[in-house]
């Protein structure tokens, strides 16, 4: 059983409010939310699932080398993303498509990466401070920590002004917790008392290796030995994910030091489209998690609050439009120019590379002339 007595949950798998003494301060966070914001959570979860399914289809049809499905993890991602303030910096792993979208990144940029057109290429400063995907597992934890060290050196946290103070939110998975870089990031974060939240999406599987092989204790306790307080949240409960993330980010922004959150969730799909989870997971396990689906749970909650059929139809229609738009735009993508091989390897001219660029241009011109 992945949950513990410490798991923070505000909605039951059936979408009913859960009220305990332990979750009271988190419920208070939710009580401040407008109906519109509650619906934003839902719209984004439904939209990204439609996008995700369409992207996987496009991969199967040869339009991308790879797709990285996020199905099942929508609540953990949407909740934590909405908890961040505009001035905060987000360091993703490579499955946080909806976080990118919420921060203002055109999610076609992700399609472009998976299609072999770029390695990212956006400027975080112009894209909601959403940094680039990092494919080497856990490396971004150190970048996030360094960024947060810089915030501390600049005196840009702990001033008591939540509109100005900055925090960092870094995403990684259960598998990444085994990486040395994640442990080193926890050490540096603790040493420099950085304003940051480590957000572990425990989706139970590091490709084919279960979390039980990664850790003998629940991952939210991984911070204990580093002196970093940890909280476990039901990652399929968007309200809990939001509230837990919000309070942790507030503490970080306030100068109270780093925090760690383990969001317990499940990777419903494959690790990537190159993977076949039927080789290592049972149908029983899969079905158990489908019954905990984050979107169904939240829709039950919204229905109980009076959301109409027309509302749900509108959300579904928006999502279908996003999927169709994604397909249309993917099929219209061109190919990069030759110069893209050489551009931006360095910020300043590099004599060896310029010679190679000139040679390739001449070679291509010769081949065309000869053809």
């Amino acid at each position, binding site marked *: 059983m992945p949950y513990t007595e410490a798991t923070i949950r505000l909605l039951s798998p059936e979408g009913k409010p859960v009220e305990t003494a332990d979750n009271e301060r988190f419920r208070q966070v939710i009580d401040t939310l407008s109906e519109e914001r509650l619906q934003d959570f839902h719209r984004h979860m439904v939209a990204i699932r439609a996008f995700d399914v369409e992207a996987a289809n496009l991969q199967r049809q040869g339009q991308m080398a790879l797709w990285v499905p996020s199905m099942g993890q929508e609540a953990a991602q949407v909740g934590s993303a909405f908890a961040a303030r505009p001035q905060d910096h987000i360091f993703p792993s490579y499955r946080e498509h909806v976080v990118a979208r919420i921060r203002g990144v055109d999610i076609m940029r992700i399609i472009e990466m998976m299609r072999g057109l770029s*390695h990212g*290429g*956006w400027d975080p400063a112009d894209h909601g401070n959403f940094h680039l995907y990092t494919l080497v597992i856990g490396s971004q934890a150190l970048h996030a920590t*360094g960024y947060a060290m810089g915030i501390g050196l600049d005196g840009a946290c702990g001033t008591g002004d939540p509109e100005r103070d900055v925090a960092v939110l870094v995403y990684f998975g259960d598998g990444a917790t085994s990486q040395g*870089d994640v442990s080193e990031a926890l050490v540096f974060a603790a040493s420099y008392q950085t304003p940051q939240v480590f957000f572990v999406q425990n989706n139970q599987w590091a490709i084919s290796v279960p979390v039980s092989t990664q850790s003998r204790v629940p991952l939210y306790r991984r911070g204990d030995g580093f002196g970093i307080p940890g909280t476990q949240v039901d990652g399929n409960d968007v309200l809990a994910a939001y509230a837990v993330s919000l309070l942790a980010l507030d503490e970080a922004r306030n100068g109270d030091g780093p925090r760690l959150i383990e969001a317990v969730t499940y990777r419903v799909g494959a690790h990537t489209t190159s993977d076949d989870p039927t080789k290592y997971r049972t149908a029983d396990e899969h079905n158990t998690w489908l019954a905990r689906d984050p979107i169904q749970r939240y829709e039950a909650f919204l229905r109980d609050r009076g959301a109409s059929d027309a509302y749900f139809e509108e959300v579904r229609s928006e999502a279908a439009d996003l999927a169709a738009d994604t397909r249309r735009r993917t099929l219209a993508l061109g190919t990069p120019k030759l110069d893209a091989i050489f551009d931006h390897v360095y910020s300043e001219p590099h004599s060896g590379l310029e010679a190679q660029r000139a040679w390739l241009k001449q070679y291509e011109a010769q081949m065309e002339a000869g053809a």
Partner: protein
Amino acid sequence: MTTQHTAAQQSTGAEPATSAQAAAESGLQEAAAQAIASSQPAASGPAASGAASPRTGIQQLPMSKAINLGLHRAMADDDRVLMMGEDIGTLGGVFRVTEGLKRDFGGKRVLDTPLAESGIVGTAIGLAMRGYRPVCEIQFDGFVFPGFDQITSQLAKLTYRHGGAQSFPIVIRIPYGGHIGAVEHHQESPEAYFAHTAGLRVVSPATPNEAYWMIQDAIASDDPVVFMEPKSRYWQKAPVDFDERSAPMHRSQVVREGADATLVGHGAMVSMMLQAAEIAEQEGTSLEVVDLRSLSPIDYAPLLESVRKTGRLIVCQEAPGNVSVGSEVAATIAEQAFYSLEAPVLRVSGFDTPFPPAKLESLYLPDADRILEAVDRALAY
């Protein structure tokens, strides 16, 4: 031909040659042991300068002190420049290269980091994203490998990955090379790994004057620079000219003119090549010596000009020869100066073994005699 002959280079050429090499080496070993083991500063130069008094004129200084002053000046010039590394603050680094910087600039700009090389480089990347210009000290050459992934998979590729939207002005300082009699992992020459990696710049000074100016060039660069410090040259004094810049860090230079063959190398090997040239001169052979200074990119023009004149090239390096910087230089010269060559390009390198126990290092590391043996072979063609 480049004619950037500074006072420092002339002095390097005039250094006492050779026969006292064994004695000098044992002196180096003492100095190294002192630097590593003692809690007292090993550098015998004057006390670290105050922040308010930039130096002028020409002064005799060891390379460790010259780099220290270069770092000091870079920190004074730009308050986004940070020092990071193990034991670099209060202690001043195991080689005392950062001595006095924490005193002068404070603990927020000179970070005694936790003992984790990947952590140092990885957090430096984040600090650069925040607008800082971190200078990371790797304590010894062989300790860079725990940080290798962050250097080669992240730092080197991040400007490219960002499509140029962000730059990563980070300097990785690595004391490298042998001749100090130290234990395993403390005498290696790993420069080829970094020169092989697109996105990094790699340089190595040979004299205190070059070190003083090149470290400032490296810090001013908007690209990541791996700054290889030839630690066996940390302690010998030579003139540093505080008023006249040395050549830009990516320029190679002829440091001794000659007619019969060309020696090329970098870092500590430059003084070894100059020793060999002194000996050869006494035997009637005129050797030209080229200091590469930059290993990525390599400035081939002065070297090609030299080889077209002498017709013979011997590439010298402490590093193992297999797939080395010297291999690349040899291949390029063979491609571009084929009709000028009177003999095959020869390489004099460390052997393709792990760095041996220190009592064997004088056999492992190329010395003046090994260089001259290769010169004899080249001249025999």
